[in-house]
């Protein structure tokens, strides 16, 4: 045997075959057409646990970990400190190796955690109800747009041009199946009509700056469209939540809340809405109830919206809630708590402003955008951002995202609580050298 996860011995297999009444395991596969049987797989030879650990450590070492490299990238994925309790909890086998909690009597750990998650997302966003989680922020937005179409019966989508371009692409992919036109509009004057199901606004926007969310709310609702807001969850540690300025649906990338960057996934999408839209929500929901002895417990509920009951008339085909990531966010929010989250948000704010001010003072660099920003901002570089980034990398720094296609000479920088003053100063010095 070469598989350490299979307990059957040759003796076991003989006894089982005898009970089944066949001569060989091979006979169990008789239904497979003979001409396709036993194709043989060309794969690398099996590795022992020791060899595998070594080989993957070598592979991992070929990546530049930002644990060791100053990094100023954000743009939808953020480096924040993750307290050890988060991973301690999500690694527990009883959470990690359970299935979707379809048997509530023996799944209260997962169910109660989801109820906590839904509650915390509601508090953070200021909304009435939140689901158990979506794949990520981008696909959650696409689902929100489809939900707006179901609610309004209208068949055009409107997105501000300042929404993360990657999110815009995901919305287009989902919209394609239903032939929904997607209109991209500038924040100054979105030309909404009675054909639009929704207006999508990112807050802070892709470039890090706050939109005039109240004015945009008025315009969306004046046109009878739903107002979909995509906040950055860490910003909600200090800034007003979308529930306070009229959002109908709030979706967000939950990664910043205790989920490692992990090269882009797995993450978890947050999805919240107003009470009147509960039955049009996609995804899983957990509700509180009692058992026959009167004890408080939790169950999956309103499942008639979901694929396994409603089938082709379901609100979505989604069949996961990225539970371990949602659990990470739950533990993270509990661990930071009321004071901690605000504190982290403020650290990001102050450090980003320190960086922006210092970079803007370097000859050749400027801040092309004005207004209030949180932890991200755009710097106009004296040389193409691509070249600046290459030169930064030579100096051991991972710079910002090249957004020169949208903003002339623009580089989108992100500074969080993880970037110490020395790192920022080092960045400023390097930019000065590179710009000279």
């Amino acid at each position, binding site marked *: 045997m070469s598989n350490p996860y299979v307990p059957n011995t040759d003796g076991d297999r003989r006894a*089982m075959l005898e009970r089944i009444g066949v001569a060989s395991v091979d006979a169990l596969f008789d239904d*497979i057409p003979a001409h396709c049987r036993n194709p043989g797989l060309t794969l690398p030879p099996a590795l022992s646990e020791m060899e595998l650990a070594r080989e993957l450590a070598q592979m991992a070492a070929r990546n530049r970990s930002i644990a060791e490299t100053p990094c100023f990238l954000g743009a939808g994925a953020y480096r924040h400190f993750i307290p050890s309790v988060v991973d301690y*909890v999500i690694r527990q086998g009883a959470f990690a190796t359970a299935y979707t909690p379809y048997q509530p*009597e023996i799944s209260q750990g997962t169910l109660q955690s989801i109820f906590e998650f839904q509650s915390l997302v509601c508090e953070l966003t200021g909304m009435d109800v939140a689901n158990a989680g979506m794949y990520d922020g981008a696909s959650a937005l696409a689902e929100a747009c489809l939900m707006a179409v179901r609610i309004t019966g209208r068949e055009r989508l409107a997105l501000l041009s300042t929404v993360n371009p*990657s999110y815009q692409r995901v919305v287009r992919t989902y919209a394609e199946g239903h032939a929904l036109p997607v209109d991209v509009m500038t924040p100054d004057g979105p030309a909404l009509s009675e054909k639009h199901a929704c207006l999508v606004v990112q807050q802070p926007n892709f470039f890090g700056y706050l939109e005039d969310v109240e004015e945009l709310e008025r315009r969306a609702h004046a046109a009878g469209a739903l107002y979909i807001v995509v906040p950055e969850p860490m910003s909600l540690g200090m800034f007003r939540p979308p529930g306070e300025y009229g959002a109908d649906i709030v979706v967000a990338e939950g990664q910043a809340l205790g989920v490692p960057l992990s090269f882009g996934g797995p993450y978890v999408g947050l999805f919240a809405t107003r009470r009147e839209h509960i039955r049009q929500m996609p995804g899983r929901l957990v509700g509180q109830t009692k058992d026959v002895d009167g004890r408080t417990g939790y169950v999956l509920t309103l499942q008639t919206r979901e694929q396994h009951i409603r089938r082709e008339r379901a609100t979505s085909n989604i069949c996961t809630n990225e539970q371990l990531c949602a659990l990470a966010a739950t533990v993270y929010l509990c661990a930071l708590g009321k004071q901690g989250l605000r504190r982290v948000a403020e650290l990001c704010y102050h450090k980003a402003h320190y960086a922006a001010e210092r970079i803007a003072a370097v000859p050749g660099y400027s801040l092309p955008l004005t207004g209030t920003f949180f932890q991200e901002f755009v710097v106009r570089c004296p040389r193409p951002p691509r070249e600046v980034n290459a030169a930064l990398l030579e100096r051991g720094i991972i710079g910002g995202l090249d957004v020169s296609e949208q903003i002339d000479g623009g580089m989108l920088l992100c500074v969080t609580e993880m970037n110490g003053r020395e790192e920022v100063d080092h960045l400023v010095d390097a930019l000065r050298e590179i710009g000279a």
Partner: protein
Amino acid sequence: MSDGERRDMGSKLSFGRGRPGRTAVTLPDCDVPLAEMPSPSLLRDDLPLPEMSQPEIVRYFTNLACLNYSVDTGFYPLGSCSMKYNPKLHEDLARLSGFAQVHPLQPIETVQGALALMHELQGFLAEITGMHAVSLAPAAGAHGELTSILTVRAYLEHRGESRHKVLVPDSAHGTNLATVSTAGFQCLPIASDARGNTDLAALAEALDEDVAALMLTLPNTLGLFDQNIVQIAQMVHETGAQLYCDGANLNALLGQVKIGDLGFDVVQMNLHKTFSTPHGGGGPGAGPVAVKAHLAPFLPSPFVGQAANGAYVFEEPEHSIGKVGAFHGNFGIMVRAYAYIRSLGAPGLREVSENAVLNANYLLACLREAYDLPYERRCLHEVVFSGSRQRAKGVHTSDVAKRLIDYGFHPPTVYFPLIVDEALMIEPTETESKETLDAFCEAMLVIAREAEEEPELLRSAPHDAPLRRLDEAAAARHPVLRWQREDQA
């Protein structure tokens, strides 16, 4: 915490634990001069989050975990879910700094290890399925289904064909039907025949120029290999439609047959099933899609390719359907699946399918006297029984399921597939020992006797679980979906 206290945990949530002023984390002082704060009109007044100390948090969640049944604690024969053992090394590997602490938008030359892993994994999955190209972008099985159907749509439209229907057998997962609608197609069910195969006459009748694809689960949700597959592939292709395989049950076929060799054009895989990444209580998983060459130009972005100098690069397929997620897919899950394939190699993967199928047939043989077998055939990785004999005694399949909890087992999937009355769908997987299977069978046989002699024992089960039966109807009638602060209640 005593068992009794643990049973009462539901009444006290994080918000009700802790005290004002407590925190579980210390944070550094601000090491830069403070900036001017934004206008107060932009800031929130209150941030109503829990206030707990670190020990309180650890105890709260650890005690919650104790209320869960899991693969690490016992046998989890949930049909169609492949609840197999999850190797612990893989958890360490996914957390290596060079994997976990890498930003998705880092310069390509700083992530060559990650891209190499993705590139190799694309190759492994193509080899295992007998397909030509693989996209790792989808975040879950159902996401892979949607990606596949959108890819088929783009392919057909590129050929100038506008087709509106997708055929789905009546034994399909609910996700298949929902996927078809989410992708903007009309769903047409196809009946199964008396042997549990796709009914060829029904298929012939449904197939026309308006059909874009047939979505077939193989082995199907009865745990059976469709004996008509060669003919089905021929019929589907003759009308210009695509043959899609829901690969959720690929565990049964590893090394036995390649999906592509059977004539399928596209297949989605569930890394959290076949390739043993933890289910996590509901994700995260990953749902890569493998396709034949003609569909490759339509796959989602990004695809990992290799430049002439050997460097790995992200590529956008020529007629790509676009992006299905913000970044490159669930990389952390890919690391675990990659490790699984590397640790087993081809012979080890074949032992997976052999033992999964052996174990399922052993259960079939041991239980067929006590429970009705709707299709008189040997099964592959899972066996579906009917509880119709027990129902005649006033005991439902859900009662059998709940009673299993008292004997220390997770119930099988119940009432699915829909075409089997009172269905009990049992998938043991290859990682269970004969002793465990024997103990499970013993419990199932005792329960069958109890159904005859003491049916009330089943109807009121479970008796020995953290909670007893919960009122799901009340939960749906008056939904309480979040904690309410006292000032809001």
